[in-house]
């Protein structure tokens, strides 16, 4: 996977999870997911953890940056 960042801001559920799962399924091992709602943040973190990967969350204004890694 080439993209290092998935911009899922403004997308309604379940699209942020679909994009995150796709990146993981394509072998992504280190990338950021940008979301701007608590719902998307919580759902993306669940998706990452279900895939036995780590999710680190930083808040930037109204956005959340979820750093995904092995």
């Amino acid at each position: 996977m080439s993209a290092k960042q998935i911009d899922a801001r403004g997308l309604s559920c379940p699209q942020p999870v679909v994009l995150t799962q796709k990146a993981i399924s394509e072998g992504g091992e280190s990338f950021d997911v940008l979301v701007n709602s608590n719902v998307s943040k919580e759902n993306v973190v669940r998706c990452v953890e279900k895939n036995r990967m780590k999710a680190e969350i930083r808040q930037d204004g109204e956005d959340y940056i979820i750093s995904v890694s092995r």
Partner: protein
Amino acid sequence: MKDITLPENSRVIVGTETSDDAGVYRLTDTIALVQTVDYITPIVDDPYTFGMIAACNSLSDVYAMGGDPITALNVVCFPTKLFSLDRLSGILKGGLEIMNLAGVQLLGGHSVDDKELKYGLSVTGIVHPDRVLRNNTIRAGNSLVLTKRLGTGIIATAVKAGLLEDDHYAPFAASMTSLNMKAGKIIRKYPVDACTDITGFGFAGHLKEMLGGKSMKITVDSASLHLLPGVLDYAGMGLIPAGMYRNRDFVGRLCSVGPNVDRALADVLFDPQTSGGLCISLDSARADDLVRELTDNGIEASIVAAVSESANPLIEVI
């Protein structure tokens, strides 16, 4: 409604105060009207199935009040620019099949052009004024019996994501297209103290309404909950509707989830349901008999919670 004051009326048996499933109005000493309206956006693609689901969902409120629905009106919001009228025809036919099954006479309806498709029914039913089942009259010593399986909101989200396994669709659709009619009739033979149907507020949200702010505790045995196939996996993947989080905030600190309850299962407690089952509160000594009779009649049911005295209103999930 909180800013609107309604005039006093001694004929009103159930009004707006208790967020109950339907309004009830006394006509005579033996007949009260049960009135409700409910419409929803599509939860499945197939128009006929969606029509069936929306009709079941609308009629359910009358069964939850202990009543029998008798007439209905279609309520339709339809985007004529997006869809052909064949889709509308399919929806209305699906709705009619359910009304025919329920012995409900369709009398007409109303449609408007809208950006988003919505369908449901305005339903009129009847009930004996002394046999109205309210949602917030639970008592210590009751058990709660729940029919149908939980998880329609999460499964619908998995459908939207294109990640639902084929085998998981049929039980999801079958549950939502099942009327609560038979269960509604069976429970009349039992000493039921309260009843509601599980819909948009999720299981825990409806338990909050059943508590009605009273000093009682509902202890939910999470292992006894029946779930649609695949629900825990989809919830674990984050395929959770925004409504789950809203419901969790709505119930707030009233609900205490034990440390041994898996996070995905805890999410299911707040998952908004479409055309969910009935939650029946009755003397715990009769709860096994009720579950047996429901099960013998092909209705999935289990005892899921117990009601006890408490210093504060509380939903405890173990």
